[in-house]
Protein backbone atom coordinates (compact mmCIF):
# COMPACT_ATOMS: atom_id res chain seq x y z
CA UNK A 1 0.00 0.00 0.00
CA UNK A 2 2.89 2.24 0.76
CA UNK A 3 4.14 1.95 -2.75
CA UNK A 4 0.95 3.19 -4.30
CA UNK A 5 2.40 6.63 -4.79
CA UNK A 6 5.44 5.30 -6.57
CA UNK A 7 3.32 3.24 -8.87
CA UNK A 8 1.61 6.31 -10.25
CA UNK A 9 4.16 7.06 -12.91
CA UNK A 10 5.18 3.48 -13.54
CA UNK A 11 1.86 1.91 -14.18
CA UNK A 12 1.25 3.63 -17.49
CA UNK A 13 3.97 1.68 -19.20
CA UNK A 14 3.53 -1.57 -17.36
CA UNK A 15 2.06 -4.76 -18.64
CA UNK A 16 -1.04 -6.01 -16.91
CA UNK A 17 0.67 -9.10 -15.51
CA UNK A 18 3.54 -7.13 -14.07
CA UNK A 19 1.16 -4.59 -12.56
CA UNK A 20 -0.83 -7.43 -11.04
CA UNK A 21 2.27 -8.84 -9.38
CA UNK A 22 3.78 -5.57 -8.23
CA UNK A 23 0.68 -3.73 -7.05
CA UNK A 24 -1.84 -6.48 -6.33
CA UNK A 25 -4.01 -4.29 -4.15
CA UNK A 26 -4.33 -1.51 -6.69
CA UNK A 27 -4.93 -4.10 -9.39
CA UNK A 28 -7.90 -5.50 -7.51
CA UNK A 29 -9.21 -2.12 -6.44
CA UNK A 30 -9.29 -0.97 -10.06
CA UNK A 31 -11.50 -3.94 -10.82
CA UNK A 32 -13.70 -3.26 -7.83
CA UNK A 33 -14.33 0.26 -9.06
CA UNK A 34 -15.87 -1.30 -12.16
CA UNK A 35 -17.77 -3.83 -10.03
CA UNK A 36 -16.01 -6.73 -11.66
CA UNK A 37 -13.32 -9.18 -10.62
CA UNK A 38 -10.20 -10.31 -12.49
CA UNK A 39 -11.92 -13.57 -13.48
CA UNK A 40 -14.84 -11.59 -14.96
CA UNK A 41 -17.25 -12.41 -12.15
CA UNK A 42 -19.53 -9.80 -10.62
CA UNK A 43 -18.67 -9.22 -6.95
CA UNK A 44 -21.47 -11.30 -5.48
CA UNK A 45 -21.18 -14.27 -7.83
CA UNK A 46 -19.62 -17.51 -6.66
CA UNK A 47 -17.49 -19.57 -9.00
CA UNK A 48 -18.90 -22.48 -10.93
CA UNK A 49 -19.21 -25.46 -8.64
CA UNK A 50 -19.59 -29.16 -9.24
CA UNK A 51 -20.13 -32.21 -7.08
CA UNK A 52 -19.39 -35.78 -8.09
CA UNK A 53 -20.45 -38.58 -5.79
CA UNK A 54 -18.73 -41.92 -5.37
CA UNK A 55 -15.30 -40.79 -6.45
CA UNK A 56 -13.50 -43.30 -4.23
CA UNK A 57 -14.49 -46.90 -4.83
CA UNK A 58 -12.85 -48.27 -1.69
CA UNK A 59 -14.76 -45.93 0.66
CA UNK A 60 -18.27 -46.32 2.03
CA UNK A 61 -19.17 -42.83 0.97
CA UNK A 62 -17.24 -40.30 -1.06
CA UNK A 63 -17.55 -37.14 -3.05
CA UNK A 64 -15.43 -34.73 -5.02
CA UNK A 65 -16.38 -31.08 -4.88
CA UNK A 66 -15.00 -28.31 -7.05
CA UNK A 67 -15.53 -24.61 -6.55
CA UNK A 68 -13.68 -22.93 -9.37
CA UNK A 69 -10.24 -24.50 -9.23
CA UNK A 70 -10.49 -25.42 -5.56
CA UNK A 71 -10.92 -29.19 -5.43
CA UNK A 72 -11.77 -31.32 -2.42
CA UNK A 73 -12.01 -35.08 -2.18
CA UNK A 74 -13.90 -36.42 0.81
CA UNK A 75 -14.27 -40.06 1.70
CA UNK A 76 -15.90 -41.84 4.63
CA UNK A 77 -14.74 -45.18 5.92
CA UNK A 78 -16.88 -46.98 8.45
CA UNK A 79 -15.17 -48.90 11.21
CA UNK A 80 -16.50 -50.59 14.31
CA UNK A 81 -15.76 -49.42 17.84
CA UNK A 82 -16.98 -50.07 21.33
CA UNK A 83 -19.13 -47.10 22.32
CA UNK A 84 -18.21 -45.09 25.37
CA UNK A 85 -20.07 -45.75 28.60
CA UNK A 86 -21.65 -42.26 28.65
CA UNK A 87 -23.38 -42.78 25.32
CA UNK A 88 -23.66 -46.54 24.79
CA UNK A 89 -26.19 -46.18 21.97
CA UNK A 90 -24.30 -43.67 19.87
CA UNK A 91 -21.70 -43.94 17.18
CA UNK A 92 -19.04 -41.41 16.46
CA UNK A 93 -17.83 -39.23 13.63
CA UNK A 94 -14.15 -38.33 13.32
CA UNK A 95 -13.39 -35.59 10.85
CA UNK A 96 -9.99 -34.65 9.54
CA UNK A 97 -8.82 -32.26 6.88
CA UNK A 98 -5.57 -32.74 5.00
CA UNK A 99 -3.57 -30.45 2.79
CA UNK A 100 -1.08 -32.72 0.99
CA UNK A 101 1.87 -31.00 -0.70
CA UNK A 102 0.28 -31.46 -4.12
CA UNK A 103 -2.39 -28.85 -3.42
CA UNK A 104 -0.38 -25.68 -3.10
CA UNK A 105 3.17 -24.40 -3.56
CA UNK A 106 3.18 -23.30 0.08
CA UNK A 107 2.80 -26.76 1.59
CA UNK A 108 5.93 -28.90 1.83
CA UNK A 109 6.13 -32.53 2.84
CA UNK A 110 6.66 -33.03 6.55
CA UNK A 111 5.47 -29.55 7.36
CA UNK A 112 1.69 -29.51 7.51
CA UNK A 113 -0.11 -26.33 6.53
CA UNK A 114 -1.06 -24.08 9.41
CA UNK A 115 -4.69 -23.79 8.38
CA UNK A 116 -5.29 -27.52 7.94
CA UNK A 117 -6.02 -28.32 11.63
CA UNK A 118 -8.10 -25.16 11.91
CA UNK A 119 -10.30 -26.10 8.96
CA UNK A 120 -10.59 -29.61 10.38
CA UNK A 121 -11.80 -28.16 13.66
CA UNK A 122 -14.28 -25.84 11.93
CA UNK A 123 -15.67 -28.69 9.82
CA UNK A 124 -16.06 -30.90 12.80
CA UNK A 125 -17.66 -28.10 14.87
CA UNK A 126 -20.13 -27.23 12.12
CA UNK A 127 -21.14 -30.82 11.42
CA UNK A 128 -21.45 -31.94 15.02
CA UNK A 129 -23.07 -28.80 16.44
CA UNK A 130 -25.68 -28.62 13.68
CA UNK A 131 -26.98 -32.07 14.52
CA UNK A 132 -26.80 -33.02 10.85
CA UNK A 133 -26.06 -36.61 11.76
CA UNK A 134 -28.05 -38.56 14.27
CA UNK A 135 -25.33 -40.44 16.12
CA UNK A 136 -27.90 -42.92 17.41
CA UNK A 137 -28.27 -44.15 13.86
CA UNK A 138 -24.68 -45.28 13.97
CA UNK A 139 -25.30 -47.69 16.83
CA UNK A 140 -25.07 -51.43 16.16
CA UNK A 141 -25.68 -53.11 19.49
CA UNK A 142 -26.10 -50.93 22.56
CA UNK A 143 -22.98 -50.84 24.65
CA UNK A 144 -21.18 -53.37 22.47
CA UNK A 145 -20.60 -52.04 19.03
CA UNK A 146 -21.20 -48.87 17.09
CA UNK A 147 -19.98 -47.33 13.89
CA UNK A 148 -17.14 -44.89 13.84
CA UNK A 149 -17.35 -42.85 10.66
CA UNK A 150 -13.93 -41.59 9.62
CA UNK A 151 -14.36 -38.65 7.29
CA UNK A 152 -11.15 -37.52 5.62
CA UNK A 153 -11.22 -34.51 3.36
CA UNK A 154 -8.23 -33.99 1.08
CA UNK A 155 -7.56 -30.72 -0.62
CA UNK A 156 -6.30 -31.54 -4.11
CA UNK A 157 -6.10 -28.00 -5.41
CA UNK A 158 -6.15 -24.93 -3.20
CA UNK A 159 -7.50 -21.79 -4.80
CA UNK A 160 -9.40 -19.99 -2.06
CA UNK A 161 -12.61 -20.68 -0.14
CA UNK A 162 -11.14 -23.92 1.19
CA UNK A 163 -13.69 -24.29 3.98
CA UNK A 164 -16.65 -23.89 1.63
CA UNK A 165 -15.37 -26.56 -0.71
CA UNK A 166 -14.40 -28.85 2.17
CA UNK A 167 -17.87 -28.56 3.73
CA UNK A 168 -19.55 -29.14 0.38
CA UNK A 169 -17.53 -32.30 -0.22
CA UNK A 170 -18.11 -33.50 3.35
CA UNK A 171 -21.87 -33.01 3.14
CA UNK A 172 -21.96 -34.67 -0.28
CA UNK A 173 -19.93 -37.61 1.03
CA UNK A 174 -22.38 -38.08 3.90
CA UNK A 175 -25.32 -38.01 1.53
CA UNK A 176 -23.58 -40.65 -0.55
CA UNK A 177 -22.69 -42.82 2.43
CA UNK A 178 -23.97 -46.37 2.45
CA UNK A 179 -23.57 -48.09 5.77
CA UNK A 180 -22.41 -51.61 4.94
CA UNK A 181 -24.49 -54.64 5.78
CA UNK A 182 -22.96 -56.47 8.71
CA UNK A 183 -23.63 -59.32 11.05
CA UNK A 184 -22.12 -60.16 14.38
CA UNK A 185 -20.41 -63.51 14.59
CA UNK A 186 -19.93 -65.91 17.49
CA UNK A 187 -16.87 -64.08 18.86
CA UNK A 188 -18.79 -60.82 19.04
CA UNK A 189 -16.85 -59.35 16.16
CA UNK A 190 -18.67 -57.46 13.49
CA UNK A 191 -18.16 -58.84 10.03
CA UNK A 192 -19.31 -57.60 6.67
CA UNK A 193 -21.53 -59.61 4.44
CA UNK A 194 -21.09 -59.55 0.76
CA UNK A 195 -24.39 -59.70 -1.08
CA UNK A 196 -24.06 -63.21 -2.45
CA UNK A 197 -23.39 -64.97 0.83
CA UNK A 198 -25.96 -62.89 2.71
CA UNK A 199 -28.79 -65.38 2.28
CA UNK A 200 -26.90 -68.38 3.45
CA UNK A 201 -25.77 -66.70 6.64
CA UNK A 202 -29.12 -65.38 7.79
CA UNK A 203 -29.79 -68.33 10.00
CA UNK A 204 -26.40 -68.45 11.70
CA UNK A 205 -25.75 -64.96 12.90
CA UNK A 206 -27.92 -63.24 15.45
CA UNK A 207 -27.71 -59.57 14.55
CA UNK A 208 -27.80 -58.39 11.02
CA UNK A 209 -27.82 -54.83 9.87
CA UNK A 210 -28.96 -54.13 6.38
CA UNK A 211 -27.06 -51.97 3.98
CA UNK A 212 -28.66 -48.58 4.37
CA UNK A 213 -28.28 -44.87 3.86
CA UNK A 214 -27.84 -42.38 6.60
CA UNK A 215 -30.63 -39.88 7.14
CA UNK A 216 -29.36 -36.35 7.37
CA UNK A 217 -31.40 -34.11 9.65
CA UNK A 218 -30.35 -31.02 7.82
CA UNK A 219 -27.84 -30.05 5.18
CA UNK A 220 -25.17 -27.42 5.65
CA UNK A 221 -23.72 -25.06 3.10
CA UNK A 222 -21.39 -22.16 3.50
CA UNK A 223 -20.10 -19.11 1.71
CA UNK A 224 -16.92 -17.18 2.38
CA UNK A 225 -16.93 -13.47 1.56
CA UNK A 226 -14.20 -10.88 1.55
CA UNK A 227 -14.90 -7.50 3.09
CA UNK A 228 -12.83 -4.78 1.53
CA UNK A 229 -13.71 -1.16 2.07
CA UNK A 230 -17.41 -1.03 1.13
CA UNK A 231 -17.25 -4.04 -1.14
CA UNK A 232 -18.31 -7.57 -0.42
CA UNK A 233 -16.74 -10.21 -2.66
CA UNK A 234 -18.31 -13.64 -2.55
CA UNK A 235 -16.28 -16.85 -2.92
CA UNK A 236 -12.75 -15.42 -3.18
CA UNK A 237 -9.88 -17.01 -5.06
CA UNK A 238 -6.54 -17.63 -3.34
CA UNK A 239 -5.13 -14.46 -4.89
CA UNK A 240 -8.01 -12.35 -3.62
CA UNK A 241 -7.71 -13.93 -0.18
CA UNK A 242 -4.04 -13.04 0.02
CA UNK A 243 -4.53 -9.43 -1.05
CA UNK A 244 -7.65 -8.57 0.94
CA UNK A 245 -7.42 -10.08 4.37
CA UNK A 246 -10.84 -9.74 5.94
CA UNK A 247 -12.82 -12.93 5.48
CA UNK A 248 -16.27 -13.82 6.74
CA UNK A 249 -17.57 -17.37 6.48
CA UNK A 250 -21.27 -17.97 7.00
CA UNK A 251 -22.65 -21.48 7.41
CA UNK A 252 -26.41 -21.95 7.08
CA UNK A 253 -28.47 -25.09 7.30
CA UNK A 254 -31.30 -26.02 4.95
CA UNK A 255 -33.86 -24.16 7.09
CA UNK A 256 -31.75 -20.99 6.98
CA UNK A 257 -30.59 -21.21 10.57
CA UNK A 258 -27.15 -19.88 11.28
CA UNK A 259 -24.68 -22.63 12.11
CA UNK A 260 -21.57 -20.51 12.13
CA UNK A 261 -20.52 -16.97 11.46
CA UNK A 262 -16.78 -16.98 11.43
CA UNK A 263 -14.71 -13.85 11.06
CA UNK A 264 -11.19 -14.25 12.37
CA UNK A 265 -9.92 -10.69 12.66
CA UNK A 266 -8.97 -8.81 9.53
CA UNK A 267 -8.41 -5.08 9.02
CA UNK A 268 -12.02 -4.36 8.03
CA UNK A 269 -14.69 -4.20 10.73
CA UNK A 270 -17.97 -5.92 9.99
CA UNK A 271 -21.03 -3.90 10.86
CA UNK A 272 -24.47 -5.38 11.25
CA UNK A 273 -25.44 -4.31 7.73
CA UNK A 274 -22.44 -6.06 6.19
CA UNK A 275 -23.16 -9.15 8.27
CA UNK A 276 -26.71 -9.17 6.96
CA UNK A 277 -25.49 -8.75 3.41
CA UNK A 278 -23.15 -11.71 3.83
CA UNK A 279 -25.97 -13.81 5.23
CA UNK A 280 -28.22 -12.83 2.34
CA UNK A 281 -25.53 -13.83 -0.16
CA UNK A 282 -25.14 -17.13 1.65
CA UNK A 283 -28.91 -17.76 1.52
CA UNK A 284 -28.73 -17.35 -2.21
CA UNK A 285 -25.69 -19.58 -2.43
CA UNK A 286 -27.37 -22.30 -0.36
CA UNK A 287 -30.08 -22.57 -3.01
CA UNK A 288 -27.47 -22.92 -5.76
CA UNK A 289 -25.51 -25.55 -3.90
CA UNK A 290 -28.64 -27.45 -2.90
CA UNK A 291 -29.53 -27.69 -6.56
CA UNK A 292 -26.05 -28.86 -7.51
CA UNK A 293 -26.06 -31.50 -4.78
CA UNK A 294 -29.57 -32.72 -5.64
CA UNK A 295 -28.56 -33.09 -9.26
CA UNK A 296 -25.48 -35.05 -8.28
CA UNK A 297 -27.60 -37.34 -6.10
CA UNK A 298 -30.21 -37.93 -8.76
CA UNK A 299 -27.49 -38.59 -11.35
CA UNK A 300 -26.08 -41.18 -9.01
CA UNK A 301 -29.41 -42.88 -8.54
CA UNK A 302 -29.99 -43.11 -12.27
CA UNK A 303 -26.69 -44.89 -12.80
Amino acid at each position, binding site marked *: *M*GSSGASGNLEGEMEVDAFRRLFPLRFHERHLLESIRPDARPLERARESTVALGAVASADGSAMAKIGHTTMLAAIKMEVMTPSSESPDEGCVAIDFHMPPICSP*FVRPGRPA*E*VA*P*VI*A*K*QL*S*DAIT*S*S*GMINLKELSLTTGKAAWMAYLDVYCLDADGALFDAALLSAVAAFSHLQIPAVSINEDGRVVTMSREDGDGKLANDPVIKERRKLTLNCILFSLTCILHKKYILADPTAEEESVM*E*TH*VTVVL*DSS*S*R*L*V*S*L*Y*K*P*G*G*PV*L*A*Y*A*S*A*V*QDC*IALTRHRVKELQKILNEAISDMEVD
Partner: protein
Amino acid sequence: MEIDRPDGRTQNQLRPLACSRNILNRAHGSARWSQGDTIVLAAVYGPKAGTKKNENPEKASIEVIWKPKTGQVGKAEKEYELILRRTLQSICVLTINPNTTTSVTLQVVNDDGSLLPCAINAACAALVDAGIPLKHLAVAICCSLTGSGSVVLDPSKLEEQKMEAFMYLVFPNSVHSVLPEGSLHVDGEPMEHGIITSVTHGVMSVDDYLHCLERGHAASARISDFLRRSLQSQALGNPSKAA
Protein backbone atom coordinates in the same frame (compact mmCIF):
# COMPACT_ATOMS: atom_id res chain seq x y z
CA MET B 1 -37.94 -13.78 31.45
CA GLU B 2 -35.34 -14.15 34.09
CA ILE B 3 -32.89 -16.98 33.97
CA ASP B 4 -31.39 -18.42 37.10
CA ARG B 5 -27.67 -18.59 36.81
CA PRO B 6 -25.72 -20.90 39.09
CA ASP B 7 -23.71 -18.02 40.51
CA GLY B 8 -26.73 -15.76 40.98
CA ARG B 9 -25.82 -13.30 38.30
CA THR B 10 -28.37 -11.61 36.10
CA GLN B 11 -28.34 -12.36 32.39
CA ASN B 12 -26.38 -9.27 31.50
CA GLN B 13 -24.01 -9.36 34.40
CA LEU B 14 -20.38 -10.10 33.74
CA ARG B 15 -18.20 -11.88 36.24
CA PRO B 16 -15.77 -9.70 38.20
CA LEU B 17 -12.98 -8.49 35.94
CA ALA B 18 -9.40 -8.07 37.02
CA CYS B 19 -6.37 -7.02 35.10
CA SER B 20 -2.80 -6.57 36.20
CA ARG B 21 0.04 -5.58 33.94
CA ASN B 22 3.79 -5.84 33.95
CA ILE B 23 3.80 -8.95 36.09
CA LEU B 24 6.58 -10.84 34.34
CA ASN B 25 10.08 -9.55 34.62
CA ARG B 26 11.64 -10.96 31.46
CA ALA B 27 8.79 -10.34 29.03
CA HIS B 28 8.65 -6.97 27.30
CA GLY B 29 5.00 -6.73 28.13
CA SER B 30 2.73 -8.92 30.17
CA ALA B 31 -0.75 -8.99 31.61
CA ARG B 32 -2.97 -11.23 33.62
CA TRP B 33 -6.66 -11.01 32.90
CA SER B 34 -9.38 -12.74 34.85
CA GLN B 35 -13.10 -12.99 34.42
CA GLY B 36 -14.37 -14.83 37.46
CA ASP B 37 -12.42 -18.06 37.62
CA THR B 38 -11.17 -17.89 34.06
CA ILE B 39 -7.63 -16.59 34.19
CA VAL B 40 -5.19 -16.11 31.34
CA LEU B 41 -1.64 -14.84 31.46
CA ALA B 42 -0.25 -13.13 28.37
CA ALA B 43 3.38 -12.27 27.65
CA VAL B 44 4.67 -10.23 24.72
CA TYR B 45 8.24 -10.47 23.44
CA GLY B 46 9.56 -8.16 20.81
CA PRO B 47 9.50 -6.72 18.29
CA LYS B 48 12.39 -8.98 17.30
CA ALA B 49 14.25 -8.58 14.03
CA GLY B 50 13.14 -10.56 11.00
CA THR B 51 10.00 -12.33 9.93
CA LYS B 52 9.36 -15.92 9.10
CA LYS B 53 9.45 -17.26 5.58
CA ASN B 54 6.22 -16.71 3.63
CA GLU B 55 5.43 -13.61 5.71
CA ASN B 56 5.40 -10.18 4.15
CA PRO B 57 8.68 -8.52 5.20
CA GLU B 58 7.19 -5.09 4.60
CA LYS B 59 4.96 -5.52 7.59
CA ALA B 60 5.44 -6.50 11.18
CA SER B 61 4.46 -10.06 11.87
CA ILE B 62 2.78 -11.40 14.97
CA GLU B 63 3.05 -14.94 16.24
CA VAL B 64 0.85 -16.43 18.89
CA ILE B 65 1.73 -19.38 21.09
CA TRP B 66 -1.07 -20.91 23.09
CA LYS B 67 -0.15 -22.94 26.14
CA PRO B 68 -3.05 -24.95 27.50
CA LYS B 69 -3.38 -25.52 31.23
CA THR B 70 -2.81 -29.24 30.82
CA GLY B 71 -2.36 -31.64 27.98
CA GLN B 72 -0.98 -31.21 24.53
CA VAL B 73 -1.61 -28.68 21.84
CA GLY B 74 -4.35 -30.01 19.58
CA LYS B 75 -6.58 -28.70 16.87
CA ALA B 76 -8.59 -26.49 19.23
CA GLU B 77 -5.42 -24.76 20.40
CA LYS B 78 -4.23 -24.31 16.82
CA GLU B 79 -7.56 -22.68 16.02
CA TYR B 80 -7.25 -20.36 19.02
CA GLU B 81 -3.76 -19.39 17.89
CA LEU B 82 -4.98 -18.55 14.40
CA ILE B 83 -7.97 -16.53 15.63
CA LEU B 84 -5.82 -14.64 18.11
CA ARG B 85 -3.14 -13.94 15.56
CA ARG B 86 -5.61 -12.61 12.99
CA THR B 87 -7.38 -10.57 15.66
CA LEU B 88 -4.21 -9.03 17.05
CA GLN B 89 -2.90 -8.34 13.55
CA SER B 90 -6.01 -6.34 12.83
CA ILE B 91 -5.51 -4.03 15.82
CA CYS B 92 -1.76 -3.52 15.46
CA VAL B 93 -0.23 -0.88 13.22
CA LEU B 94 1.91 -3.27 11.23
CA THR B 95 3.67 -0.73 9.05
CA ILE B 96 5.63 0.96 11.85
CA ASN B 97 8.12 -1.81 12.55
CA PRO B 98 8.46 -3.67 9.27
CA ASN B 99 10.35 -6.94 9.10
CA THR B 100 9.99 -7.64 12.81
CA THR B 101 8.19 -10.33 14.69
CA THR B 102 6.31 -9.83 17.92
CA SER B 103 5.45 -13.00 19.76
CA VAL B 104 2.55 -13.28 22.13
CA THR B 105 2.43 -16.24 24.49
CA LEU B 106 -0.79 -17.08 26.27
CA GLN B 107 -0.79 -19.33 29.27
CA VAL B 108 -4.16 -20.58 30.45
CA VAL B 109 -4.12 -20.47 34.23
CA ASN B 110 -7.68 -21.60 34.72
CA ASP B 111 -10.54 -22.23 32.34
CA ASP B 112 -14.05 -21.59 33.57
CA GLY B 113 -15.76 -20.64 30.35
CA SER B 114 -15.33 -17.73 27.93
CA LEU B 115 -11.70 -18.72 27.57
CA LEU B 116 -10.96 -17.23 24.16
CA PRO B 117 -12.44 -13.78 24.97
CA CYS B 118 -10.47 -13.74 28.19
CA ALA B 119 -7.30 -14.59 26.27
CA ILE B 120 -7.94 -11.87 23.69
CA ASN B 121 -8.44 -9.30 26.45
CA ALA B 122 -5.26 -10.47 28.17
CA ALA B 123 -3.26 -10.33 24.93
CA CYS B 124 -4.54 -6.84 24.19
CA ALA B 125 -3.53 -5.59 27.64
CA ALA B 126 -0.10 -7.20 27.25
CA LEU B 127 0.41 -5.54 23.85
CA VAL B 128 -0.38 -2.18 25.42
CA ASP B 129 2.04 -2.97 28.23
CA ALA B 130 4.78 -3.73 25.70
CA GLY B 131 4.07 -0.47 23.88
CA ILE B 132 3.33 -2.16 20.57
CA PRO B 133 1.67 0.48 18.34
CA LEU B 134 -2.06 -0.23 18.14
CA LYS B 135 -4.81 1.26 16.00
CA HIS B 136 -7.23 0.78 18.83
CA LEU B 137 -7.89 -1.75 21.54
CA ALA B 138 -9.95 -4.88 21.24
CA VAL B 139 -12.48 -6.06 23.75
CA ALA B 140 -13.86 -9.57 23.62
CA ILE B 141 -17.02 -11.00 25.08
CA CYS B 142 -18.78 -14.33 25.07
CA CYS B 143 -22.55 -14.28 24.52
CA SER B 144 -24.60 -17.41 24.85
CA LEU B 145 -28.13 -18.30 23.84
CA THR B 146 -30.42 -20.45 25.91
CA GLY B 147 -32.91 -22.82 24.37
CA SER B 148 -35.63 -20.22 24.80
CA GLY B 149 -33.65 -17.66 22.88
CA SER B 150 -32.55 -15.35 25.68
CA VAL B 151 -29.03 -14.04 25.76
CA VAL B 152 -26.72 -14.75 28.67
CA LEU B 153 -23.43 -12.91 28.84
CA ASP B 154 -20.04 -14.19 29.92
CA PRO B 155 -21.08 -17.78 30.67
CA SER B 156 -19.09 -19.99 32.97
CA LYS B 157 -17.98 -23.40 31.78
CA LEU B 158 -20.98 -25.08 33.31
CA GLU B 159 -23.32 -22.66 31.59
CA GLU B 160 -21.49 -22.98 28.25
CA GLN B 161 -22.17 -26.70 28.25
CA LYS B 162 -25.88 -26.19 28.88
CA MET B 163 -26.37 -23.50 26.27
CA GLU B 164 -27.90 -24.05 22.88
CA ALA B 165 -25.31 -21.87 21.23
CA PHE B 166 -22.63 -19.40 22.13
CA MET B 167 -20.42 -16.97 20.32
CA TYR B 168 -17.22 -15.09 20.89
CA LEU B 169 -17.36 -11.50 19.69
CA VAL B 170 -14.52 -9.00 19.54
CA PHE B 171 -15.17 -5.28 19.07
CA PRO B 172 -12.98 -2.17 19.07
CA ASN B 173 -12.94 -0.25 22.35
CA SER B 174 -15.05 2.85 22.70
CA VAL B 175 -12.64 5.69 22.04
CA HIS B 176 -12.57 9.21 23.37
CA SER B 177 -12.48 11.62 20.55
CA VAL B 178 -12.21 15.31 19.90
CA LEU B 179 -14.11 14.86 16.70
CA PRO B 180 -17.77 15.79 16.66
CA GLU B 181 -20.11 13.02 17.65
CA GLY B 182 -20.86 10.73 14.76
CA SER B 183 -17.87 11.54 12.59
CA LEU B 184 -16.40 8.14 13.25
CA HIS B 185 -19.60 6.40 12.39
CA VAL B 186 -19.66 3.96 9.53
CA ASP B 187 -23.01 3.34 7.88
CA GLY B 188 -24.66 5.10 10.75
CA GLU B 189 -23.08 2.81 13.30
CA PRO B 190 -20.37 3.83 15.73
CA MET B 191 -17.00 2.28 15.06
CA GLU B 192 -17.06 0.23 18.22
CA HIS B 193 -20.02 -1.70 16.82
CA GLY B 194 -17.91 -3.16 14.02
CA ILE B 195 -17.03 -6.81 14.53
CA ILE B 196 -13.33 -7.57 14.56
CA THR B 197 -13.81 -11.26 15.20
CA SER B 198 -16.83 -13.47 15.40
CA VAL B 199 -16.72 -17.16 16.22
CA THR B 200 -19.94 -19.01 16.80
CA HIS B 201 -20.77 -22.46 18.03
CA GLY B 202 -24.17 -24.08 17.80
CA VAL B 203 -27.23 -23.41 15.70
CA MET B 204 -29.24 -20.20 16.06
CA SER B 205 -31.51 -18.04 14.00
CA VAL B 206 -30.08 -15.02 12.24
CA ASP B 207 -32.20 -12.75 14.42
CA ASP B 208 -30.78 -14.35 17.53
CA TYR B 209 -27.32 -13.60 16.23
CA LEU B 210 -28.12 -9.96 15.59
CA HIS B 211 -29.71 -9.76 19.02
CA CYS B 212 -26.54 -11.14 20.56
CA LEU B 213 -24.54 -8.55 18.66
CA GLU B 214 -26.49 -5.76 20.34
CA ARG B 215 -26.06 -7.24 23.77
CA GLY B 216 -22.44 -7.79 23.00
CA HIS B 217 -22.01 -4.11 22.14
CA ALA B 218 -23.45 -3.08 25.45
CA ALA B 219 -21.24 -5.46 27.37
CA SER B 220 -18.15 -4.57 25.39
CA ALA B 221 -18.64 -0.91 26.29
CA ARG B 222 -18.40 -1.91 29.95
CA ILE B 223 -15.30 -4.01 29.41
CA SER B 224 -13.87 -1.19 27.34
CA ASP B 225 -14.37 1.25 30.21
CA PHE B 226 -12.79 -1.18 32.60
CA LEU B 227 -9.81 -1.66 30.29
CA ARG B 228 -9.36 2.11 30.00
CA ARG B 229 -9.50 2.59 33.74
CA SER B 230 -7.11 -0.26 34.29
CA LEU B 231 -4.66 1.16 31.75
CA GLN B 232 -4.99 4.62 33.24
CA SER B 233 -4.27 3.54 36.76
CA GLN B 234 -0.84 5.03 36.86
CA ALA B 235 0.53 2.62 39.38
CA LEU B 236 1.81 -0.15 37.18
CA GLY B 237 1.69 -3.55 38.70
CA ASN B 238 -1.15 -2.57 40.98
CA PRO B 239 -3.98 -4.77 39.94
CA SER B 240 -7.21 -3.02 39.18
CA LYS B 241 -10.48 -4.66 39.89
CA ALA B 242 -14.03 -4.16 38.86
CA ALA B 243 -17.09 -5.93 39.98
